[in-house]
């Protein structure tokens, strides 16, 4: 068992979820409530990571924030190391890849809140911030949690993108799914099996949790 890789995967998954919580709530609610031109385009873009081969996404990310790109150079100037092949780069990629996993369940749960509930809250003198905090979040939490659980599990298992933008640097970018691949390449099936079983158990747990949560959609009046 490659503990540093396992710990790194957990750290990456936790950081990804931490970034996606505010981002997903914001974007998910926005997509659920607003009707605007170009909505379909944005929805398609947000869902793109679901269908795009991870290597393709990884390639574009490499080009997009590699050391030759403006973003990569700005990062280098500000922090003194490159964005690709670093934990931060990995986190950036992981957040992008997980956007649909986080946003879609959150968006669905915000859509399930009847519109006149928002109006009634506003008519009751609640500020937009209070409406979100006291009415919408308590009703949408199962969807929000589902999005986070799915993102967490998906980050643990992500392989293609992580390999493309992270390489396999021990302690920095070698996650558990890459460690499994390395072990298999080295014909160390015993180690690969333990790690695979661990991921299998965690994925099952996450799906079970997400499934249990989706049964608890917002109650209607």
């Amino acid at each position, binding site marked *: 068992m490659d503990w540093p890789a396992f710990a790194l995967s957990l750290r990456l998954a936790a950081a990804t979820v931490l970034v996606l919580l505010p981002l997903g709530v914001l974007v998910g609610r926005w997509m659920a409530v607003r009707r605007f031109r170009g909505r379909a385009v944005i929805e398609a873009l947000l869902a793109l990571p679901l269908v795009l081969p991870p290597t393709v996404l990884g390639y574009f990310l490499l080009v997009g924030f590699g050391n030759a790109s403006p973003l990569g150079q700005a990062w280098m100037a500000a922090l003194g190391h490159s964005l690709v092949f670093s934990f931060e780069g990995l986190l950036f990629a992981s957040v992008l890849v997980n956007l649909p996993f986080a946003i879609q369940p959150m968006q669905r749960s915000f859509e399930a809140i*009847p519109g*006149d*509930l928002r109006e009634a809250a506003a*008519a009751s003198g*609640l500020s937009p911030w209070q409406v979100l905090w006291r009415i919408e979040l*308590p*009703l949408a939490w199962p969807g929000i949690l589902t999005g986070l659980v799915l993102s967490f599990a998906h980050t643990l298992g992500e392989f293609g993108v992580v390999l493309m933008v992270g390489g396999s640097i021990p302690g920095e970018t070698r996650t558990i799914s890459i460690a499994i691949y390395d072990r298999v390449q080295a014909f160390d099936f015993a180690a690969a099996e333990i790690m695979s079983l661990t991921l299998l158990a965690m994925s099952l747990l996450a799906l079970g949790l997400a499934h249990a949560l989706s049964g608890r959609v917002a109650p*209607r009046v």
Partner: protein
Amino acid sequence: MGLVFQSYALFPHMTALGNVVAAMGHRPRAERQAAARDLLARMGLAGLEDRRPAQLSGGQQQRVAVARALAREPRVLLLDEPFAALDRRTRRSLHAELRALRAAIRVPILLVTHDLDEARDLADLLCVIDQGETLQTAPPHEVLAAPTGDRIRRALDLD
């Protein structure tokens, strides 16, 4: 203006008391609970404060919605077709409740309805609006006995 929605739009995750307290943001925090209890009691809901909307009957939900609207201390209470989605019997019993409510509170009530019988039953003053235009404002029996024009006759289907 206090607003009562057609579907009542109660906050489903809050108790009856919570729904009313939520609309009392303009009052000092210490007063809210007692004031909300008092309002609910005046609506005949004493003892039901801790129920969620799903555990209340339609009529009780409507009274919670009215209590929540009154919590803002409005100068007018607007009921937007509160009986539209109900069957005849429930509607009749809610009409009785509304009459009792009207006697209990001093706030004028503006009731929007498409049902002439309902308007005749409940209103002190009937205001006929057709395509955004006010046609006649008078006590119901006057409007019905002496409509002021053909358009009213047509709008109310009196012919």
